[in-house]
């Protein structure tokens, strides 16, 4: 993932991750009941998994298992998958298609009239909040350990930002995401959740 070249990264964006959709492993069927059989998400039961990387999905399952992420459904559900059983499930959902988005690059605009877009593309450094897209990628399409925000359910993004604030979601290196989430206001959380959800 890290040695990806510019060309292949662009290629990845413009087509599904794998040419042939993977067959659903039996162990992924249980996940599909809440996340949808192709991981497109079923609001409010489960967020979209399609568009997330294997690395990220694997890591989140482990965080649920160790209690660093807490959720009444996922805490027990994550226990079903142990050891080598995690990867095929993560691969399956990571291989699912997501709608193409035309990404907005930093610098395409110099001035944002919408404060939410300003936060997303420029951050608010008076509060030491970097632009969301620095880690989550242009338009929040995500990559590697950084989850895709583009097209994710607004209710889920909101719940997660609140969970970071409440300390029921952890596991980020040096509390980088937690410390950013802690600086966001309730209104900003609502607006950011809506903004990213609408990137489709």
């Amino acid at each position, binding site marked *: *993932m*890290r*040695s*990806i*070249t*510019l060309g292949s*990264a*662009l290629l990845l*964006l413009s087509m599904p991750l794998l040419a042939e959709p993977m067959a659903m492993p039996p162990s992924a069927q249980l996940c599909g009941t809440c996340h949808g059989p192709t991981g497109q998400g079923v609001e409010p039961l489960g967020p979209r998994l399609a568009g997330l990387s294997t690395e990220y999905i694997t890591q989140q399952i482990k965080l649920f298992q160790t209690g660093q992420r807490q959720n009444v459904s996922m805490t027990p559900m994550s226990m079903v998958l142990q050891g080598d059983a995690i990867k095929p499930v993560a691969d399956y959902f990571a291989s699912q298609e997501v709608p193409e988005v035309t*990404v907005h*690059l*930093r*610098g*395409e605009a*110099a*001035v*944002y*009239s919408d404060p939410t877009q300003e936060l997303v593309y*420029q*951050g608010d*450094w008076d509060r*030491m*909040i*970097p632009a969301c*897209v*620095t*880690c*989550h*990628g*242009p*338009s929040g*399409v*995500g*990559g*590697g*350990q*950084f989850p895709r925000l583009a097209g994710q359910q607004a209710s889920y993004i909101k719940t997660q930002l609140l969970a970071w604030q409440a300390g029921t979601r952890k596991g980020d*290196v*040096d*509390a*980088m995401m*937690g*410390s*950013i989430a802690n600086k966001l206001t309730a209104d900003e959380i609502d607006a950011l959740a809506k903004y990213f959800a609408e990137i489709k």
Partner: protein
Amino acid sequence: MNHVKSLRSALIALVGLCVPSLVIAAELPDKQAELQVKPKSEDTVYLNPREMSAIPQGAFGDKVRQGYQLFVNTQQLRGKYVGNELNCSNCHMDAGRKPNASPLWAAYMAYPAYRKKNDKVNSFQDRIQGCFTYSMNGQAPANGSEELVALSAYSYWLAMSGLMDQYQVAGEVPELSDAELLKGGKREDFALPAAVKAAMNIDELAKLPGRGFPPIDKPELAYSPERGATVYQAHCQACHGDDGQGLAIAGVYSLPPLWGPQSFNWGAGMHRVNTAANFIYENMPFGKSIQLTNQQAWDVAAYINSKDRPQDPRFKGDVEALQKQYHNHQGYYGQSVNGGAVLGSQSYPVNPDKK
């Protein structure tokens, strides 16, 4: 897109005109000499440039906005003036606005400056050219080029709007001609509002608090790449990768490569262990969620800068000679680390996309 195309053709024409004046690698001066920076203190008040929305409409404002756009997406110059995957904003946080992250506003007011090393007065334009040659591992845009004007205009606007607000000077930032913009603000004939002139002299303006990266104390133990590797794994690799090559999403490395062919070259200021330690201590981890210790910052700076990267553009075939001439500082050029090849002897190419 049309804008980019017309910009490109305008540039090609410009470069064509200016070829005789392009600096040749063999004569490159050291344009990244260290600035003397005061240590940080708690009660410092920093300049606070105006919001982007305050940039005026019109031709001058367009140059300022273009400067910002080049600064945060320097990759639009890839293959022309940029030879790696970096963007200016990777090191100059908050698009060059953040104090103690080498803010543009402070740099603008520090030039023109006399440099012992090349025995000449360097303008602000010369300094930005140095960034392209070294930090961006590319080919500096020619004197007076649209890009240098735009980057100078953006820097000037940040500096002047901050100064005007600090001293309650109302109104728009005064427009300057391209030739004036390229010079920088440290000169007797630089137009300053009376209130600013009354408050600060030229030398104070050249040393605005927050300039450069604040120097940290020497480490208790001599810095060590071996200890730095441990720091790197714990605090840096999550974003920059276990191989230091950063992370590209949609083709953009906003989490930049720290060494290797796509990072800054052996002539860039950041290859110095002290410069990198100062930068890291003040600005990393990104968003400043934790504070590394002084020792950790030195060690991890040593680790990052003990890896190979693109060659020093002043290299003429003799690593030892170059090391003696330009690398009498805290860095690993010309040295072997842990029995590896002498750094510089097998470095990656300078400006690999050169056409």
